């Protein structure tokens, strides 16, 4: 996680350290039906970042007193595998994982038609198998796919991506190296079909203009990601490398 010193992250031709252009995503792979037990599941990769999502429900809540009379209870766990990071991560939930579980849950509270399933629970389990930046946004994408795969009715599909600022320039889909040296990281989740931003964070400094430009970069990429989701739901597997 340390800041790379003296490394140029954008070269004279505007290319990033892995050859991407500023507004270019890493290769994306999406697959559904990857697990047997879960009611819905998905594997999503943004470059080396790899997220496994499973959805259970609607089902009876583990503890009955949690049941809500007028809607489904949502439970979300964003969790990193101990081997997903550079140094082994303790499997006990960190403060970061607790916060991200919350913001991801909140990204779906208004998307899932929770009123259809009173007194039940819908569980979204997200495992970061490999972390290389953008895990929370890839997790939103994986959750959206797994929910659809589980047949949970939603207002719209959602996807996420982070926009960063490195060496004064806005770039799409930052990886770990870029994030470590970047001036800003702005994860966004969006449901294009209903034009709703469901997750939005900014970590770092932006001007008002950069904010708007960065947001539009994210929304534009998310529109494509949701198209990929739709294809994945039909074809089970999609990869931007093979396109």
């Amino acid at each position, binding site marked *: *996680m*340390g*800041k790379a010193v003296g490394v140029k992250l954008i070269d004279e031709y505007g290319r990033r350290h892995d050859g991407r252009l500023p507004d270019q995503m890493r290769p994306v792979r999406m697959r559904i039906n990857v697990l047997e037990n879960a009611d819905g599941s998905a594997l999503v990769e943004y470059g080396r970042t790899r997220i496994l999502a499973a959805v259970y429900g609607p089902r009876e809540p583990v503890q009955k*007193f*949690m*049941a*809500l009379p007028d*809607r*489904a*209870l*949502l*439970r*979300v*766990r964003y969790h990193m595998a101990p081997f997903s990071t550079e140094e082994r991560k303790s499997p006990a*939930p960190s*403060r*970061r994982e*607790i*916060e991200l*579980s*919350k*913001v*991801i*849950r*909140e990204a779906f*509270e*208004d*998307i899932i038609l*929770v009123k259809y399933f009173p007194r039940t629970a819908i569980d979204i389990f997200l495992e970061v198998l490999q972390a290389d930046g953008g895990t929370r946004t890839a997790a939103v994408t994986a959750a959206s796919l797994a929910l659809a795969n589980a047949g949970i009715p939603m207002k719209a599909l959602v996807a996420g991506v982070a926009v960063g600022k490195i060496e004064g320039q806005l770039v799409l889909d930052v990886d770990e190296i870029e994030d470590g040296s970047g001036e*800003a990281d*702005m994860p966004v989740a969006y*449901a294009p079909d*209903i*034009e*709703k*931003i*469901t*997750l*939005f*964070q*900014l*970590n*770092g*400094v*932006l*001007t*008002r203009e950069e*904010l*708007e430009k960065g*947001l*539009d970069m994210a*929304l534009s990429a998310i529109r494509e990601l949701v198209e990929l989701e739709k294809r994945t739901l039909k074809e089970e597997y999609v990869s931007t490398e093979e396109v």
Partner: protein
Amino acid sequence: MSLTPFKVPIVPELRKSTILSLLAKGLRTSERDLVTPRIVKVKTGVIERAEGSAQVELGNTKVLVGVKTDVGAPFRDTPDEGVITVNAELVPLASPLFEPGPPDENAIELARVIDRSIRETNAVDRKSLAIIPGSKVWVIHVDIYVLDHDGNLFDASMLATMAALMNTMLPDYEELETGEIILDRSKKTTPLKINKKVLTVNIAKIGDYLVVDPDLDEETVADTRIVVAYDEEGNIVGIQKSGPGAMSREEVLKAVDIGREAVKIYFKSLEEATGRAE
């Protein structure tokens, strides 16, 4: 693991429609307009034995922040910088909604949003906190203590944190030949070096309206909220959408603009309290 809260107060539909019909007229139950925060009171130095402290009242919301300092080891990747930790306790005396126990997701989110605003802007000069670079640095503990919860803990806590940091004086110390550092907390003569002042504005979306500094009733009926951190130059230095619900692109941008005006009121209160207008 995050769960849909299942113990929230249920706001009667009537209450919600009252709030909405007032908003339609540009009014709020607390008799202010949509873009103005409640009355702010900032008082520093309220805990004499702490290295820094401040109490903020934002309407009926009351937050106390204390700063304690210690000497410790730096992080491996920043050997010549001090360490800052931010912790928030939603102690049960502050609200019937709070129960004793370790910080829950709300307390953790609150602390982390404030922590990021300070960290990313280098608001506290961490380089100035190295005592023996590589081995001994100042560790600055910021503890947010919510005493009365009537909504918008974000802005009140951020304001109290900033005021407490500006109020912080590092203790004198002696460096032994062994390299050990002995603090003399009875003498505090070095002010903590502040590079930048940062404050947040919490904006709730209720129906089609955006309102600054929601109180607890407003937060409860709100569709969602967005918390935006600004520096004095008007840069955006942090954002957190918090709470269920969604916003449109236009609402986000409008909220950022509304907040940029509203934050000036907070900055004024901060300056008045700290006497450190720059």
